């Protein structure tokens, strides 16, 4: 069934909201009850990276075979991915305010994520500034590959080389060592899947809407 993934994502979302708020979470100093923010903040970033990966996949597909459908999908995946990233940064700022002391801490991962989002915002600026449809699609597909290649080191590599307060980066093993215990994994992984599927669903709605728009403007 084509719509099955939508029902799965809804069921998982209800489960992670119930379980994320009610099940036992590790008792940690400073974090206290906010440790549960992990269930909602981190899946935004995982969702963003997964959506951007599909976006760059369609960008490469477009460069190999220039069909406008590939371009459309590439843009919409990048679009929803950026929305996830903005939610990730906002939730992160709120969380940081109460655990690190200020919303913007100059943390390498925080800065890197912000730069990555700016790189993707430039992608939309680029698209908006080219009139020729074919040229727009080709240029933005090439830029999409560049943006993806810039995002990976900004989020995953540089924060690990320097000192980051994000768990699992720099000299801070954090969640990996003992915090993200089996109880948290039971909610965290379904949360990643649920939000990613919701993202795919919204992308499909946007793609169908744009296809309708194109069909109507042709007639």
């Amino acid at each position, binding site marked *: 069934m084509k719509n099955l993934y939508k029902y799965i994502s809804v069921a998982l979302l209800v489960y992670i909201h119930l379980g994320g708020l*009610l099940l036992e979470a590790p008792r940690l100093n400073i974090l206290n009850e906010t440790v549960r923010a992990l269930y909602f903040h981190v899946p935004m970033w995982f969702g963003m990276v997964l959506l951007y990966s599909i976006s760059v996949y369609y960008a490469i597909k477009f460069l190999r075979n220039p069909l406008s459908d590939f371009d459309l999908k590439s843009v919409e995946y990048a679009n929803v991915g950026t929305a996830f990233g903005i939610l990730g940064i906002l939730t992160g700022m709120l969380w940081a305010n109460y655990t690190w002391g200020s919303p913007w801490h100059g943390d390498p991962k925080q800065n890197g994520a912000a730069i990555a989002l700016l790189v993707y915002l430039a992608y939309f600026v680029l698209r908006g500034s080219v009139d020729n449809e074919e040229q727009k699609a080709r240029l933005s597909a090439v830029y999409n590959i560049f943006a993806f290649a810039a995002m990976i080191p900004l989020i995953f590599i540089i924060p690990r080389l320097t000192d980051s307060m994000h768990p699992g980066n720099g000299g801070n093993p954090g969640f990996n060592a003992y915090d993200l215990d089996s109880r948290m994994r039971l909610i965290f992984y379904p949360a990643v899947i649920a939000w990613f599927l919701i993202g795919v669903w919204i992308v499909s709605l946007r793609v169908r809407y744009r296809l309708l728009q194109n069909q109507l403007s042709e007639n």
Partner: protein
Amino acid sequence: MKKILTTLLFSFITFLGFSQAAEVEMADTMRANGKIYVVVGIILIVLIGFILYLFALDRKISRLEKLVKK
């Protein structure tokens, strides 16, 4: 022997005391009096509301697709 035993005993008591102090504060009161379910309920209402909205949007686009096909 007696000295060692008292030392052990006292260090055990201080250890107990420390572990009591190290108890991390969580929102236990909120769980105890059940108010947490109010929060959970509110979040679920918002979540389900948005999901229903998404389904409605999905149906609307499907209807439009059928219309355009004709």
